[in-house]
Every structure is written in structure tokens, then in C-alpha cells.
């Protein structure tokens, strides 16, 4: 599943390990001048679908989690947190918390739908624009500088939910 995730993963990893990561290990500090974001050459192909028949999963990198069920993400870890949390799509927004130190949470705490549009998605299901909404929402903390760990840890965890919930389509909303 990782072949096309990043088509220059080997060179990216070498650059990351010798630069950003080595500096972190040596100094316990972050130097973003040493970091480069992934740039792919290849695109990924996939057939379109009929949204009105699709089962949709929302994946959010807001750091949202359900404190009554799960522990928070390790938001202070400068190496990132590559685990996921799940919570029912029917969860009242007032029951959610956010563990993510890398964005201003003012907006999402005023109105969760700026990152978690669950009421809007339910409306679209009611109007038959979307076939159905997954019973589960997937969340992670979108501070993940180590691409190899995203591929080895975050991706398989999300893919497992996709399979378990018989998902046709995924809406990804970064924070």
C-alpha cells in the first residue's frame, strides 16, 4: 500500500534521518530549515463513484478524541504521534477533547464543524446526496514529521477501520 504513498520515499528518508532527525537526536531541538516536505512525481489513479450510494468515512487530523474512552494524543512529543483514535459519529461535540499543540484550537472549540463536519454530513445523508456515513470517525494528531512512521503505523490503522466499516470513500480534513 505504500508504493505510491511517496514515490521518492527512500531519498526523503535519507534526507530526514541525516538532517532533521539527527539534529533532533543531537540537540533535542527542532530545526525546520532541515525539513523538506514530500514532493511526488507520480499521480494516483482511481475511478470515481456514485456519492449517493457511497459509504463515507471522515478522517480528521484535528487531534480530537473521546476522553471517556481514550487517552489523549502525545501532543508534546516533538517526534509526533502516529496513533489513531476513533469515536462514534454520533458523539456530541461537547464530549470531545483535542490533543494537538500545533494549531490554534479557538475555532474548533467554538464550532467543531470547522474540522468535524458531522452534522453537515448527516444532513447530506438525509438528503440522499451521500449513501451513508460510517458509524466511526477516525482522528489523529496531524503533527507527523516522520513519513515512514505514517506509512508503517497510521496508515494500517486507518485501513483496518476502512475494511471493518466497509467504506467506499474517505473524506480527509486536515487541521
Amino acid at each position, binding site marked *: *500500500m*505504500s*508504493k*505510491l*504513498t*511517496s514515490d521518492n520515499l527512500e531519498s526523503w528518508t535519507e534526507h530526514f534521518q541525516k538532517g532533521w532527525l539527527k539534529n533532533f537526536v543531537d540537540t533535542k531541538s527542532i530545526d525546520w530549515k532541515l525539513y523538506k*516536505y*514530500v*514532493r*511526488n512525481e*507520480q*499521480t*494516483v*489513479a*482511481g*475511478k*470515481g*463513484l*456514485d*456519492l449517493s450510494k*457511497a459509504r*463515507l468515512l471522515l*478522517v480528521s*487530523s484535528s487531534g480530537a478524541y473521546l476522553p471517556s474512552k481514550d487517552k489523549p494524543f502525545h501532543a508534546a512529543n516533538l517526534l509526533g504521534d502516529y496513533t489513531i483514535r476513533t469515536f462514534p459519529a454520533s458523539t456530541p461535540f461537547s464530549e470531545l477533547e483535542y490533543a494537538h499543540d500545533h*494549531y*490554534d*484550537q*479557538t*475555532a*474548533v472549540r*467554538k*464550532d467543531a*464543524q*470547522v*474540522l468535524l*463536519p458531522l452534522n*453537515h*454530513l448527516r444532513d*447530506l445523508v438525509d438528503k440522499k*446526496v*451521500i449513501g451513508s456515513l460510517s458509524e466511526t470517525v477516525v482522528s489523529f494528531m*496531524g503533527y507527523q514529521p516522520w*513519513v515512514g512512521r*505514517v*506509512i508503517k503505523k*497510521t*496508515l494500517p490503522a*486507518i*485501513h483496518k477501520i*476502512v475494511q471493518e466499516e466497509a*467504506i*467506499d*470513500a*474517505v*473524506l*480527509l*480534513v*486536515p*487541521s
Partner: protein
Amino acid sequence: MGLIARALEEAGIRTTLTSWNAGIIRGIKPPRATITALQRGMTLGHPHDEAQQKRVLMETLKLLELDAPVDLVRLNEK
């Protein structure tokens, strides 16, 4: 998010995303994406601006009906 979208698409799951970060998304090349000029932390729109949130959401979801790769769709939302 773009990397996860690519991997899921490769596994046969259709994906779409919206982002305020055009630079990173252009580099990653996800299968389908909309780009806005909204701010970090309010990816779908301003708090309690349901009309804007619904516009961004619907424009992003509509892309699922198209075969990927789809050229990045820039939305006039800020």
C-alpha cells in the same frame, strides 16, 4: 493527509480532501483535493458560518464522482 489519501486510493478506496495549504498539497499530489485560502484550524470555514462550511464540504465531496487524478480545485473561500 495527502499521503494517506494516496495510499487509500491505491488500495481501492476513493478519497477526497480539502486544505488551506496549497504548497504542501501541490507537492504531495493527492488523488482529489480542493484548496482554499482559509486559515489553519478552520479548514472547512469560519465558526458558525454554516453556508461556507457546506460550500467547501460539497465542492470537496463532489470530486469523489470524478476519476482521479483530478487537478487541484481552488475555491474562492477565505
